[in-house]
């Protein structure tokens, strides 16, 4: 059951980077230090440093092919599942390197959840079983399964729509509902961080708005890192933005990191300014 409580946050100035850091000790803080990645011998990311504060939304923006998806797959140890993939650097979750020798990948992936671009609910399970599938797959126990399902579907903004058909097939929902089901499924294992790889790119505006409301509700308890191509979405939901860029023949790099308002109104780098104002991308 969820035991984390809402914290009272004072009003923060969204252009002030220092004020964006969450109070020390909040779980879910991630730091990527000098992360590089290869596919075989082809280097795709070079020396990335990014601090993702707990309880905040960090948006990763940038043109296609610059390694944003590879980067967030490094954050939950899915990158190493690709044959021939390699990486360097460290990724700290609450101060501990998740690639350290004493860390199981499965534990890391339970604490750092992921929502994919294309909704992928399990077709052989009902909606109810889909939400609880994370528990079944990680052999965790829940004291009150019905309450957990209701809580997770409620946080994902799906409870009212499916409360009368919890036993229907997971694949029988519309695209937006399926994606919210995937979010509910990811929340059921109580992650500290939720990675989202363009979760709304395949959805209509209404579903997108619902998911953004969900992000707004859960960000206090779950750190969110979201890859998005939608500039307006990044401005609406994130407190911090990292702009990725890649030049031909070179690995991807982070060009600029900063508070969202500052990235969009007053970027320090010309390339960032060009991208957010739509001159390329």
């Amino acid at each position, binding site marked *: 059951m969820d035991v984390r409580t809402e914290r009272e946050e004072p009003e923060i100035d969204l252009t002030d980077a220092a004020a964006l850091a969450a109070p020390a000790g909040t779980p879910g803080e991630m730091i990527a230090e000098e992360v590089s990645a290869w596919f075989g011998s082809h280097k795709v990311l070079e020396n990335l440093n990014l601090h993702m504060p707990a309880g905040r939304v960090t948006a990763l923006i940038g043109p296609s092919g610059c390694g944003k998806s590879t980067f967030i797959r490094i954050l939950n140890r899915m990158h190493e599942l690709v044959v021939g993939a390699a990486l360097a650097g460290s990724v700290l979750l609450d101060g501990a390197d998740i690639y350290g020798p004493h860390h199981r990948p*499965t534990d890391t992936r339970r604490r750092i959840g992921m929502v*994919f671009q294309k909704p992928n609910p399990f077709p052989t399970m009902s909606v109810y079983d889909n939400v609880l599938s994370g528990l079944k*797959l990680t052999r965790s126990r829940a004291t009150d399964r019905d309450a957990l399902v209701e809580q997770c579907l409620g946080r994902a903004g799906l409870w009212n729509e499916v409360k009368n058909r919890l036993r229907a097939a997971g694949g029988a929902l519309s695209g937006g509902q399926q994606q919210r089901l995937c979010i509910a499924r990811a929340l059921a*294992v109580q992650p500290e961080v939720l990675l989202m790889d363009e979760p709304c790119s395949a959805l209509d505006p209404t579903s997108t708005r619902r998911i953004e409301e969900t992000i707004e509700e859960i960000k206090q308890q779950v750190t969110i890192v979201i890859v998005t191509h939608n500039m307006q979405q990044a401005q609406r939901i994130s407190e911090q933005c990292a702009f990725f860029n890649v030049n031909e023949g070179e690995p991807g790099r982070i060009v600029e990191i900063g508070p969202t308002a500052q990235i969009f109104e007053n970027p320090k780098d010309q390339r960032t300014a060009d991208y957010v104002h739509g001159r390329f991308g």
Partner: protein
Amino acid sequence: MSVDLDDPGLQAPPDSPNGHVELAPMRPGALRWNDVAIFLGAAVSSLSLVWLVYERLAPTSGALGFLICWVLTFLLVYWIVVREVDGPLVATDKLVAVGIGIVAVGLLVPLVSILVYIIYQGLHALTVGFFLRDMTGISPQQPASAGGAAHAIVGSLEQVGLALVISVPIGITAAVYMNEVRGRMTRAVRTFVNAMSGVPSIVAGLFIYAIWLLQFHHSFSGFAAALALSILMLPTVARTAEEVLRLVPDGLREASLALGSPEWRTTWSVVLPTARSGLVTAVILGMARAVGETAPLIMTSFGTQTMNWNPFSGAQQSLPLFVWQQYQLGGGAVGTPGFLRAFTGAFALIMVVLILFVIARLFGRSKFSSR
């Protein structure tokens, strides 16, 4: 140019309240009485024309030639008539459709005729007792309705059952290894499985005879037959299961792994249930291969006339072996008791296969699939 709004031609028809004219629904491609009449008329006229020329006038004879001439003439007459009625475009379309239909019917004819002939010949010995008695003490002179194939049915079910128990877990594990684990020996495993699928059934029987019966000093048994059958079933199950596992979308595996599931549990709880109906198809194909094999049974279970419930000791009868041995009893002469019993045995074999397939399909239906 002014328009006279009192012109009755511009008014709506009196019987439609909102001014719209109701049109009759058009169903292109649907069968009309006209089409059926043209089809039958062409068939009859071509039949009579061919009968006149083929049978009476020309020095030709034979049923097959008659049939071919009739089909060709029918197609020609049909095409001419449809061309006159509906035009050349429709005529070509209908000609090809009818031609394909005739070919399809032609393909069904051998299948149906096998079934009909088996039932026709098998009816003589087909009694309730056929499924309850065995052949103990039945001499070759006794009529076809004496004796039964109960021992053969029991033997077939037990041997195929044991072969399933052996080959299905190994086959699906091999498929999981080749597709999910993708270890270093994947290529070797795939080569072995493909090579095994080419093993002749009698060689599989000889192999089990040499190893199990001679080397390990066992006697004929249903279990030895099951071993030989599983050699034949295993490659089919493994290859089909691998194909089916490949069709499970990667997104589901990723979703499961991202929740923190270990890879083996992802395979067990997500991939295999998603591929369930395909895996059942793999099992059915394996069963189909094994249930009709006769050659490997000759030297592993040997066959017997008495009921043997224990597949682990003593020779056991099975349906294909029963058919063959009954046929030999009759010396191959049509109408002898052995000959008739063989056909009844073949009919029983078809029924057993049908029931096994239906059970497997029911078992494989996921609670959410509409198929």
